[in-house]
């Protein structure tokens, strides 16, 4: 068997372009996929233009709120690309440099302030998008809605806080600026205490009864206004989210992305290599000669799977080492990585052998390997809840038949302690290994036909 392995490595070495494609292409694709997924989804790039004149303030009553810092808050939520004017914003959106452009028009604060007047005008912000495809359109809509909800919340909180300050003045008293002049407010609490100090000197009678009535009102008003302040605060955000996670702990998004990239690399290298090298035995007419007493068909299958596992292991580990500068991986779990990659590679190799034995020709095999591996890999990444229940069940059943999904689970578990149990995906991979090996062995009967 080792001589056949050596022969396959010699053939690979003899075809530098094929070897280069086989190794570099999946690594490149895997890295691109990995980084695309690992990019923080909360930080889309948005062109930002603030046309609101400096020093504009939202008015509450006769007062003006201090600066809310909308720009800072928005740019904390997205990656802002500051532009000079609308034309530049449109250019950036059109070229695809940014997901959308958000423009705060010059009259935004005036319109906000008009809400408290007799002629209210709806405040508007301008959003420029390039909805070149439905997915992007949906993404942009969701992002903008979320951003505006966040901005509205900030403004509402600020207004509520300002309203609360006025309530505080009303209850506890204090100084208040109007048109540059400071006005001292007595407040209900101090008013009540002054009246209570006056009450003992008043003789019983209608005047004292009237004073008692005022004191009762002041106490009642103070108590209710005390309740109003937190209520005002809650009105700004009446519902808060209390999230409960019912699943097992999951690895960080970046680790998941690396697991996806590693499994994708392993899947393409192993399936293509095993399927291709098995089909090559037939194209070179060597299969009948080999299996005429030199090597058994089963031994030939084992050799091909071993070849796929060995090359897949090297390529995947190289890929993980290449990712290390960007994302910190737990190298102390290296042993588990090897176990997961070898198990995944073996099951994928067996699937590749079944494809190779069924398709029989190298070109047909390459096409078939892509046609099977790519959709299965994509389907394996569909999360529950993203599609209807029945469709998801179908996807889950379909992806369970191919080693990509359990391989992804195994590699994810090996990379991070939060990745879940390694035992279950390994058992799943073992079942698939046996099943595909049996299918491949069966297909080899037809493979040998002259």
């Amino acid at each position, binding site marked *: 068997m080792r*001589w*056949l392995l*050596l*022969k396959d490595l*010699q*053939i690979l070495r*003899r*075809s530098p372009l094929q070897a280069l494609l086989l190794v570099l292409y999946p690594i490149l694709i895997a890295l691109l996929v990995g980084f695309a997924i690992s990019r923080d989804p909360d930080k889309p790039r948005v062109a930002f233009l603030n046309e609101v004149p400096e020093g504009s303030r939202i008015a509450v009553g006769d007062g003006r709120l201090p600066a809310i810092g909308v720009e800072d808050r928005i740019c904390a939520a997205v990656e802002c690309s500051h532009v000079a004017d609308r034309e530049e914003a449109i250019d950036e959106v059109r070229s695809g440099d940014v997901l959308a452009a958000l423009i705060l028009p010059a009259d935004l604060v005036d319109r906000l302030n008009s809400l408290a007047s007799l002629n209210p005008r709806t405040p508007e912000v301008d959003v420029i998008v390039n909805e070149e495809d439905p997915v992007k359109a949906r993404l942009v809509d969701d992002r903008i809605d979320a951003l505006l909800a966040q901005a509205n919340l900030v403004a509402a909180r600020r207004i509520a806080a300002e309203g609360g300050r006025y309530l505080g003045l009303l209850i506890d008293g204090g100084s208040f600026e109007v048109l540059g002049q400071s006005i001292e407010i007595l407040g209900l609490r101090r008013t009540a205490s002054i009246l209570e100090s006056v009450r003992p000197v008043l003789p019983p009678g209608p005047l004292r009864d009237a004073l008692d009535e005022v004191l009762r009102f002041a106490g009642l008003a103070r108590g209710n206004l005390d309740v109003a302040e937190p209520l005002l605060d809650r009105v700004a955000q009446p519902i808060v989210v209390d999230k409960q996670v019912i699943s097992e702990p999951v690895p960080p998004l970046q680790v998941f992305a690396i697991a996806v990239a590693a499994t994708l690399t392993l899947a393409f290298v192993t399936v293509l290599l095993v399927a291709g090298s098995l089909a090559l035995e037939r194209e*070179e*007419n*060597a299969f*009948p*000669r*080999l299996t*005429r*007493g*030199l*090597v058994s068909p089963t031994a030939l299958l084992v050799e091909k799977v071993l070849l796929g596992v060995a090359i897949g292991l090297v390529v995947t580990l190289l890929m993980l080492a290449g990712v290390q500068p960007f994302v910190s991986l737990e190298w102390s779990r290296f042993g588990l990585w090897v176990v997961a990659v070898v198990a995944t590679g073996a099951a994928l190799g067996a699937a590749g052998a079944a494809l190779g034995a069924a398709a029989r020709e190298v070109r047909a095999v390459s096409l078939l390997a892509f046609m099977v591996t790519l959709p299965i890999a994509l389907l394996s990444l569909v999360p529950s809840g993203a599609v209807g229940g029945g469709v998801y069940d179908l996807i889950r059943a379909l992806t369970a038949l191919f080693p990509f999904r359990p391989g992804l689970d195994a590699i994810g578990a090996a990379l991070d302690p939060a990745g879940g149990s390694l035992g279950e995906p390994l058992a799943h991979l073992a079942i698939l290994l046996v099943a595909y090996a049996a299918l491949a062995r069966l297909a080899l009967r037809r493979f*040998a036909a*002259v």
Partner: protein
Amino acid sequence: MRARGLVKRYGEREALRGIDLSVEAGERVAIIGPNGAGKTTLLSILAGIVRPDRGEVRSPNGRVGWVPQQAALYRRLTVEENLLLFARLEGHDDPRASVEEMLELTGLAERRSEIVARLSGGNQQRINIAIGLLSRPAALLLDEPSVGLDPRQRARLWGFVSSLGERGTTVIFSTHDIQEAERYGQRLLVLADGDGLFDGTAEELRAAVHSEAPEAASSDFETAFVAFLQHRGH
């Protein structure tokens, strides 16, 4: 090598209909017949690649070398790498010595480092045969070894095959070229549509052709042979 009552069906079609064959050690036997006669099927059964539906085969010492019609070797490996691989798989004690022997035998020693894909069809066929010889067979089966070769390559190939017979190796080869069979086969087995029509020397075949198709006796041997097949209902 003995074969008796070989029958092989592919679906409804009968590829062989009870073929008998007996070949002595060191003999060179040509199996001739038109396309679809059953030549490749017979050789594949003798080589143990295909199982007959009926009949039995007895091989000398169980060692029969097989050289398929299309070169069964790795075109991206060199001549030497191909020979070394199969010598190792054959379990030779000194595979490199076996490689040297085969390079010497095929006359390709100077081209040992060349990638097989860059060699001519004739040279590829010589390596193909050399690999078949690595098992040190008592009998070598060649399926249309000269197909696709130019006359010069064919002459070199048959010179090589004849030398094997002189070394004591039994050679059974198939061809649809009647002249090639007459020239290089000591005995000829004629097949047509799975039937064995004739088994004997070239002279005996000529006599049979002339007796069964006298109207074609004045024609060349190939034309007379075709008339013979027609007389036999093929």
